[in-house]
């Protein structure tokens, strides 16, 4: 038996690869679950029930998926152009920061205009945060993996400083949290008496829009060409630098929007635990989706389901909910292997 590179990967294999990866990850993590002494099948049963088994579970999963779709899109858009944006977490917080600053009574706008402006401001803040590393990359060849990753910590400390100082809610009983945003800036709920908000609709709309841009417009055409072969794109006369900066603004903007939508749709104010690593999970989402804008939706739902389901499971069994992190991380590793295997075929002899 031998592995041989495929010249072309059929669609079926490309769709089966993530599925196989997820199953492999579940199988591997079953060992950990078994180690805790819990019955594996029942644990996974509870996990699935906790993720999609009721109206409440389903809306929780969708709520959790909303920022993941956006950060997943942020990573997918950037990675396609070979811009390795590891800084979605920081961009998310910058977006959230812009949302609480502008939505907290600083702007005097008609009610119908406030929410869109706040969301756009969040996008702008995230985009500008990534623009810096992108400019350094195209001008001086500075490695954006390092700059974007380290900026995450800079942003978090900056937000922490503001929450302890200038932005601290005087009514917040001393907690490091900002004042709430104006009710007019809040995103409407999609389902009454749940936490599911209109951010989901925005995220779904954006993934469809990005897919259309990618396949139907000269913007997307340039992005794909620059991502796949910047030298050939430059030779053909495409504005490679402009494409890179545009991609940075878009990617950072999507991450910023994730933060603004969390503030305006879910939390109402900013704290340092706004995101349990949505920025980093977005990378996993994008990889599972093989950087496809529509695939991001499915991958985000999967990961959100794992997290929400694992919470429910851990309440009923002696399995800690950290199993969700392990599952997600294992899925990513399995996906990398599956992606590799999908490019090969098995041959006898």
């Amino acid at each position, binding site marked *: 038996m031998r592995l041989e590179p495929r010249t072309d990967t059929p669609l079926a294999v490309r769709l089966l690869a993530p599925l196989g990866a997820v199953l492999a990850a579940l199988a591997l993590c079953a060992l950990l679950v078994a180690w805790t002494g819990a019955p594996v099948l029942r644990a996974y049963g509870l996990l699935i029930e906790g993720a999609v088994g009721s109206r409440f579970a389903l809306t929780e999963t969708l709520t959790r998926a909303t920022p993941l779709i956006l950060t997943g899109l942020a990573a997918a858009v950037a990675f396609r152009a070979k811009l390795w944006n590891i800084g979605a977490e920081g961009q998310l917080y910058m977006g959230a920061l812009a949302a609480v600053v502008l939505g907290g009574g600083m702007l005097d706008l008609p009610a119908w205009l406030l929410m869109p402006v706040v969301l756009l401001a969040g996008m702008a803040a995230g985009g500008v945060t990534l623009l810096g590393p992108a400019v350094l990359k195209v001008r001086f060849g500075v490695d954006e993996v390092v700059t974007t990753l380290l900026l995450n910590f800079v942003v978090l400390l900056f937000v922490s400083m503001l929450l302890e100082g200038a932005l601290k809610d005087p009514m917040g009983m001393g907690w490091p949290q900002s004042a709430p945003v104006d009710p007019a800036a809040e995103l409407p709920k999609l389902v009454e008496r749940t936490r599911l908000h209109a951010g989901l609709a925005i995220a779904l709309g954006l993934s469809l829009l990005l897919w259309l841009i990618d396949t139907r417009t000269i913007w997307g055409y340039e992005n794909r060409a620059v991502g796949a*072969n910047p030298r050939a794109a430059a030779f053909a006369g495409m504005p490679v630098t402009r494409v890179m900066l545009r991609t940075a603004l878009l990617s950072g903007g999507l991450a910023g929007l994730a933060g603004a939508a969390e503030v305006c749709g879910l939390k109402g104010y900013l704290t340092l635990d706004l995101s349990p690593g949505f920025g980093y999970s977005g990378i996993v989402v994008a990889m599972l989706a093989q950087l496809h804008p529509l695939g991001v939706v499915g991958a985000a739902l999967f990961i959100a389901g794992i997290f929400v389901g694992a919470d429910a499971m851990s309440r009923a069994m002696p399995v800690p909910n950290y199993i969700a992190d392990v599952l997600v991380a294992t899925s990513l590793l399995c996906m990398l292997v599956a992606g590799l295997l999908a490019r090969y075929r098995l041959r006898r002899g």
Partner: protein
Amino acid sequence: MPTPASRAVSGGAEVVLRLDGITKRFGPLLANDGISLTLRAGEVLALLGENGAGKTTLMNILFGHYVADSGTIEAFGRPLPPGSPKAALRAGIGMVHQHFTLADNLSVLDNVAVGTERLWRPWSDRAAAKRKLLALAQRFGLGVRPDAPVGDLSVGERQRVEILKALYRDARILILDEPTAVLTPQESAGLFDTLRKLTADGLAVVFISHKMNEVFAASDTVAVLRAGKLVATHATASTDQHRLAELMVGRAVKPPAPAALVPGAPVLELASVTVASGHGRPLLDTVDLTVRRHQVIGIAGVSGNGQTALAELVSGLIHPAGGHAALKGERIDRADPAGMVRRGVARIPEDRHSAGLVGAMAVWENLIAERYRDRDFSRLGVLRRGAARAYAREVISAFDVRCPGPDARTQLLSGGNMQKLILGRTLAHGPDLILASQPTRGLDVGAVSYVHGRLLEARARGAGVLLISEDLDEILALADSIAVIHHGRLTPLLPHGRVSVGQLGLLMAGHWDILPEIVDAA
């Protein structure tokens, strides 16, 4: 001087290598189909064939890079275990790859000795290694400086280091893959001298080539491969070029015949153009050049002498630091690839894989890459995919690109079809100037004659062609006038027919002192 071809190898010499029924498949492609060959001590065997005929595959099997699907190899009467370069080396087989496998930052001696010493030894016996190297160099006339860093050596010198590397490992069978592709004519002659000394010493040499004149200059026996099959084995002396060419291609080939045309108005003018390299010698040094309509100007030179900078300049990728360039009388004021396309420059890049095409994208997407902003292909930022595909279908049929259709992924095309795709993209719009950088590198004879035909057709239509090629035969076949590039400097145009191959070779090696006599004679 006795030519090697006249030196018959006695039938009684020891058989050192025997390939028997070697077959290798890559997916649907039968790269080697039941090939059997024998090689005797003191023999030079030329392995002749087009690109893709299976020459390199066969040698890679012999050297253990690939494992044959079936067939056996015997070296010096003992079976050679498949798939092990180590075993091949131990059996006395040495290989000189087309792309050298030397470390630029190490010295000649280190490059030669690397891998021959045991890993866990506190110190190496450099003095002994050096003695052995110098003795070998002396014996076979391979002059090298053992302590010079390989990065400073010329291509010809690097090749000598590669050969010495094989000899240092006591190779008795030497495989050379397209050894002359990077050499000047004089360096090639020097290589053939070396081969004679090696075979006189009892070594056997397999040398892979697709150039006919070299086969006659250097080999005793010639084996012709076509589409993976061994189609003929002849004593070189008992055959002729014409016959070999037909065997190689499988049909009659005729060389391109440029019609005599009167050059027209200038389309490209370079005046004292200098391109800085950022350190040391400029890439282009006060270059003057004029290309006129109905004219093919050939730029001859050994690789790495400024050809890339010249091509990038005319492609619009870089802007000169000094002097100026003009297209159809209009001065070029900045680096602007898209602008060059708009002004009627067809650009055929040197490296079609990395600069010419986006392999991961579809054929139609590559065909519109230079013009996607035209109203034909997009409106208000939205691609007109239907129109682009229809256009792609037209180009595919007009330029005979063999592919499943406009949606095929470009990287699945063969090299020849990729080049046709680039020709289609650039020539379909009636350009005034064609920049052809190494337009036939790596192509088979059929594709080469297609590309040449298209270039001459454009010349007849009124385009000027700037042909940059390291293949002197190609330049001699197409160019009306030739300029030689060396260390970033360009000779004046030398009319084809007034300059000999020998003179070109000297100019390519930097002997510009002969220039006055050529120019005077012309």
